[in-house]
């Protein structure tokens, strides 16, 4: 019996992927449009990419976004990892389920509410809004994601490895940096990347908490689109898509190769017991 793809399978595949990727493909194609009119094809050109480099405003916004994303992701990773450690390690204490519930809550909280409450807080604190407030706001919600990702890595962690390190003369804090952190590092990195991307494309919370001089890229794009889509915007978005795609593909290739290497090693080691 041959089990080739049936027409039904092929059709659903095509429909599904078109639904997902057609808008993005269109965006990429129109970023190479020579015409100023977004919806009219006027020949191939890369001039919008060139003019992008001249657009100070967009470049500024991009720079702000990267700085916000980098700082907030880093702080969120530290805080989120600590939160995950406490929740996984400290066993049962009064209010444990309340705490873990509160860690998850911002994941499902509407962004508008989160943004508004942060804005109210900053106003109450009489804090001038700008780079630091956006950064803090992003740290707040990103750390929940980090905590969740790191927590899943910690659950499978064999605690006797830490005990072994202490038994061999390594004090607890040093053990954390020499043993625990290197082992959960893939989880921590994944958390950082997630936090970075979330901060990169956040529009709602940034709009609430930002101030003059700290416009992020999504905010910039959004405000420009309201005045009409320019091919320049298409070009920016294409670059963003390219960066994300390359990152994801690279990450999955690395993981795949490590996995394959590991399986080969384990197969090789299996035979050694019989030898």
């Amino acid at each position, binding site marked *: 019996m041959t089990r080739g793809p049936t027409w039904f399978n092929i059709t659903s595949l095509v429909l599904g992927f078109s639904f997902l990727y057609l808008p993005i493909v269109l965006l990429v194609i129109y970023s190479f449009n020579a015409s100023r009119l977004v919806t009219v094809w006027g020949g191939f050109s890369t001039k919008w990419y060139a003019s992008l480099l001249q657009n100070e405003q967009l470049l500024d916004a991009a720079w702000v976004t990267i700085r916000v994303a980098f700082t907030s992701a880093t702080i969120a990773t530290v805080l989120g990892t600590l939160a995950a450690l406490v929740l996984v390690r400290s066993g049962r204490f009064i209010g444990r389920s309340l705490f873990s519930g509160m860690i998850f809550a911002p994941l499902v909280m509407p962004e508008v509410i989160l943004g508004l409450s942060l804005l109210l807080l900053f106003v109450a604190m009489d804090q001038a809004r700008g780079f630091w407030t956006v950064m803090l706001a992003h740290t707040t919600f990103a750390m929940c994601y980090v905590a969740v990702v790191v927590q899943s890595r910690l659950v499978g962690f064999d605690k006797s490895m830490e005990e072994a*390190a202490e038994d061999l003369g*390594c004090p607890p804090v040093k053990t954390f940096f020499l043993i625990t952190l290197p082992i959960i590092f893939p989880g921590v990195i994944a958390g950082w990347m997630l936090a970075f991307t979330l901060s990169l494309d956040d529009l709602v919370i940034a709009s609430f908490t930002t101030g003059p001089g700290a416009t992020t890229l999504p905010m910039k794009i959004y405000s420009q689109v309201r005045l009409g889509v320019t091919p320049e915007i298409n070009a920016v978005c294409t670059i963003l898509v390219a960066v994300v795609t390359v990152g994801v593909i690279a990450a999955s290739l690395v993981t795949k190769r490590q996995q394959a290497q590991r399986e080969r090693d384990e197969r090789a080691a299996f035979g050694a017991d019989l030898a």
Partner: protein
Amino acid sequence: MAKKSIGPVRREFVPWESPDHPPFIEFRNVTKKFGEFTAVNDLSLKIYEREFFALLGGSGCGKTTLMRMLAGFETPTTGQIFLDGQDMAGIPPYRRPSNMMFQSYALFPHMSVEKNIAFGLKQDKLPAQDIESRVAEMLRLTKLEEFAKRKPHQLSGGQRQRVALARSLAKRPKVLLLDEPLGALDRKLREETQFELMALQEDLEMTFLIVTHDQEEAMTVADRIAVMDKGQLVQVATPAEIYETPNSKFVADFIGDVNLIEAKVVEKSTTGTRLVSVTDGFVIDSEQNTDAGTDETVWYAIRPEKVRIAQGTGEAGAVNQIGGLVWDIAYLGDVSIIHVKVGEDDHDTIRSTFANVSRMVEKPITWDDEVVLTFDRDAGVILRG
């Protein structure tokens, strides 16, 4: 009559028989509670330098907790622990002169074999060339030289076990703690490794404390065994003593195979005790003197290999001679186990084992044969409860 001794003698090493020999490890009235649950209950134990000591018991008997208290991972609720004369109270694990080999091996997955072994030495800030030579020595000792650069996941189970051993030995601890060290290995490899462990312990002249639930393993490697139950020591003795002179029904039943016969004391004299089986009325004559009073019900424990079996019918009323019918036969190759029905009830059987010393037998024992079981006056032990 020449003085008899129990079992083969492996080495002349009996510090526990001299009362003023200083102990190397001492648990003094140690109790450990986890909430309501008492894991270790008012336990006192002395272990001597260069001894290979085994803590043996079922799961939840407190043996692992006892070892973890010595390593410093648990704090006793009450009581004291001494190691080489020093009170261990308040000393964290990373400052204790003991090292532990974990059941899961707990190898550091991100470090190579040699880095794993060097880890403890680096914590002591030894000079680099000392670390290097010690690691090389450990690799040689555990036959791991060719795997030095490998990561743990590139090793087989047996190799990982040896890395864990090398890592815990590298610092030359005063005492090596082994927590079910061979549990993850298959039977053949486990037996080999047991003898390797013994050789290693004698070569390095170190004190080893092993926790295990496997009685064969404990009996193979240890100088002395402590049988534990419900957080307390039931018996502490050499493997041969534990097997041949168990002090309770629990130990007799836990170690090896045993026939437990419920019997009543009918006569006590200077030369021994006479018992009568409660259910079947046969007479047992033992050279053992017991504290049990006349008419008291006791247990007579006799190992199956000490019960001889022969075809034929016994004399009525003869001493240490029980007639019966062959009820079940198990042929295991090296030995055969015969279940002999000695009473009315089908479960009322006594087991006899014998080595199959010849390949052929003229008249093999078979089902429903009439047989006689006999045993010597010193073959069994009288146990009260």
